[in-house]
């Protein structure tokens, strides 16, 4: 069966899977068909129409992201006609926003449209007219910039919020050129079901949504570097790329190829990294002196003090006088060790986990 699943892409035979779209098969084969509304994690939408290709036997070009391949289909992705249509269409899209460059720092895909404009060599400034999106500067949440002046209504933010995050915080208000991206009842993100996971920021192809946390460091001149690591917050083990400028941690980006998260993050992993270099961060254990003041101590000292406190308490008040709570940031193995410690130490099962508490 599968040996017969062959179609022709730009003159070359190519195998395809049942149900595969032209766009996906081409992508797999290394042919990058232009697009603006495509995110591999989301259902194909067919909105931007940048991915149109010519299919033999069909008069008009078809959107390759929504067109499933059939056997012996003959597809051309680079005819003069579709290239002309794409260029003009992209010129139309560029015309709906002010011609303003924003930092690529804003989000993972923030320069996608600009890069495409460069790649296709389109003219800027053609098709003068009204602009479409309206920024929401009054939304002063600390995480997500809503700079909709740059929005192209691809709805990747709306779709990622619903399809991947399951928050359903975002919607599409109005219609046609007046369309605006909204949250809940068209108010601040904080008044909606938004959890500030930042997924919308990372899929936005124009920088209309921006990571306000990383944007605080836009003025640092050092070139950004990324380091792959695992988010320290919980046991899921989401892969992240830490963004640093010099020795400053400036931001976190989800790793699209992270095996546990595949690009997803929560508000803590995405935005709450200031503790790493915070002035108040504890760098050594603290123990109380005789005056009851916290003073720096060595780990040995601190652990001895803790062990003594626990055992004295049990000796004096009984095994049910101590209670352990394992951190939600600890992985399974550490949580196991914690409950073992508590049970061995006190002989009671006064043990819980903060994820449950």
């Amino acid at each position: 069966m599968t040996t017969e699943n062959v179609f022709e892409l730009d003159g070359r035979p190519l195998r395809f899977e049942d149900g595969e779209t032209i766009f996906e098969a081409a992508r797999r084969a290394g042919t990058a068909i232009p697009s603006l509304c495509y995110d591999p994690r989301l259902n194909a939408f067919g909105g931007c129409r940048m991915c149109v290709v010519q299919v033999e036997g069909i008069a008009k070009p078809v959107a390759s992201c929504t067109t499933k391949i059939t056997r012996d289909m003959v597809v051309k992705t680079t005819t003069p006609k579709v290239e002309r249509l794409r260029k003009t269409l992209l010129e139309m899209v560029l015309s709906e926003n002010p011609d303003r460059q924003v930092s690529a720092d804003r989000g993972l895909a923030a320069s996608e449209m600009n890069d495409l404009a460069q790649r296709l060599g389109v003219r800027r400034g053609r098709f003068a007219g009204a602009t479409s999106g309206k920024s929401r500067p009054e939304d002063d949440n600390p995480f997500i910039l809503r700079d909709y002046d740059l929005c192209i209504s691809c709805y990747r933010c709306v779709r990622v919020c619903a399809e991947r995050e399951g928050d359903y915080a975002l919607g599409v208000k109005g219609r046609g050129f007046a369309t605006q991206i909204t949250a809940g009842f068209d108010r601040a993100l904080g008044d909606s079901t938004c959890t500030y996971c930042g997924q919308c920021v990372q899929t936005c192809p124009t920088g209309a949504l921006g990571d306000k946390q990383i944007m605080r460091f836009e003025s640092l001149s050092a070139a950004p570097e990324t380091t792959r690591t695992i988010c320290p917050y919980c046991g899921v083990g989401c892969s992240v790329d830490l963004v640093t400028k010099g020795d400053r941690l400036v931001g976190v980006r989800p790793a699209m190829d992270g095996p546990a998260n595949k690009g997803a993050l929560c508000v803590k992993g995405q935005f709450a990294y200031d503790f790493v270099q915070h002035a108040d961060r504890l760098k050594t254990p603290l123990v109380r002196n005789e005056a009851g003041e916290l003073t720096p101590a060595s780990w040995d000292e601190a652990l001895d003090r803790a062990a003594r406190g626990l055992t004295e308490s049990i000796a004096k008040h009984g095994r049910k006088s101590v209670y352990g709570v394992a951190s939600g940031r600890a992985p399974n193995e550490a949580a196991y060790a914690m409950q073992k410690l508590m049970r061995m130490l006190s002989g009671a099962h006064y043990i819980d986990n903060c994820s449950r508490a």
Partner: protein
Amino acid sequence: MSHQSPEDLVGHWKGAEAPLLPLLHAFQERDGYIREQALEAISQGLRIPLADLFAQVSFYHHLTLEPDGWDAPRVCDGPVCRQKGSKALLNALPGARPMACSGRCDDPIPVLRRGQLTVGLEAGGLQTRSSPLPPPPPDGVRECVFAKIREPDRATLKGYRGTGGFRGLAWALEADPDALLERLDQSGLRGRGGAGFPTAAKWRAVRDAEGDPKVIVCNADEGEPGCFKDRALLDHDPWAVIEGMLCAAFATGASLGFIYLRYEYPETYGLLEAVLEEAHREGILGEDALGPGRAFHIHLRRGAGAYICGEETALLNSLEGKHPFPRNRPPYPVTHGYRDKPTAVNNVETLASVPPILHEGAEWYRGLGCGEHSGTKLISLSGDIRRPGNYEVPLGLPLATLLEDWAGGPPEGRRIQAVTMAGLSGGFLDARDIAEVTLDDPSIRARGSFLGAGGIIVYDDSRSMRDAATDAMSFFADESCGKCFPCRIGTRRLLERLEGSAGPTAGAEWVDEVKSIGEVMQQTSACGLGQAAPLVTESLIRRFSEDVGWKHEGADPS
């Protein structure tokens, strides 16, 4: 209704088919607008996210989130009503808002307020009255769908039965679905909503598709400006449409039916509610509608003001309570329609054509056309013409015959400068086309246009065709759903160029931009709206080039 609690209202509709639109209407009627608490109750009851509900309410023209918004008069500001002075009426009525063509172009200007429709030319002269009957055809012209519509009491069950009603269905029930489809095939009947897909082929595809129940949807969301034929059929011959739906159900094995009616036809809504209630009471619909144990039910649903919902997949999303964007196709509704069940979406006129065809036979229907053209088409004729109205023409009839002989020509002292085709979607034809074209798709398509749903708006020589094109594009820009980029941006840019509010205002540079945008829209838009809208500018450039300050070089491309 006005005292029902949110829990009562949601509870009443929760288990019903397609509950969202009726619930939104019920809350709006109760409160005068849609309150946030109403959306919260609906969100909980129907398990639809709030952001999605808010988005949908903001999409439909006739749903309002402003207190007392439902109270504001909405004045038809379509192309024909603009000719009649809708701007003055808008100014004369306090708080009035414009609404898109509301399908009453053969009457004075319609005004909709709190779900009541009145017509008039002046603020003091608004009156309630039933919609006009189609004018009688010239002697010797034979009709199919309008043949009995002028019979007194035709709209009642008794009157319908007394004037030959249900004979098509009776024939089908005595024969079988195959014979029905065979007869329709032979008649050559094609969808009358504009796309022209062969009706029998659509029904066969639904019959052969996997899935249960199968569904028949009557598309009565007649939103194309200058089209008002479906309203005439539903107002004056509703049982013919019900009979057509029963025939469709018998042919396909469907047990579930919907009529999706545009919001701007409130009196039609009341009439259909009564008809459906009587049909269920009389057993014409219900558990044994098509014989013992062969059920067919029809649910009536109102749109809420959105041209795009006339597009069949947007209509299905609207019924299902989803954002009314058109769907990506394939899959088509015949296999994945209402709630992914095999679904035939048919236009009102198509359905009303079926019973007479089944009763009189395919040969009879084919013979109604002129020459080799088979059958008839309803034309909604309006604008600068002495006898506007709905006409059932034999396909192939010369357009000039309809305009001059049937409808009396232009007003005294005027000549016809242009007509639109397919409402507004087919763009403009000029006087030379009008002298030559016949009313059938091959002839009209040869001129770069199409017959569509059959709306023809007449412009006499006192009109500016650039203004007419601006009005038309303003409609498409307002109705563009916002899903696909070429239509969302293109309709706006074309409107700006027609208005002269941005970009070049005339001349070769104007034409270059307008043609570039038009090509992208025609070639890449996701649905018919964006594909057809640039016919307005294309035909303006081709036929009325002096209106855009540009002179043709070389031969006329037509």
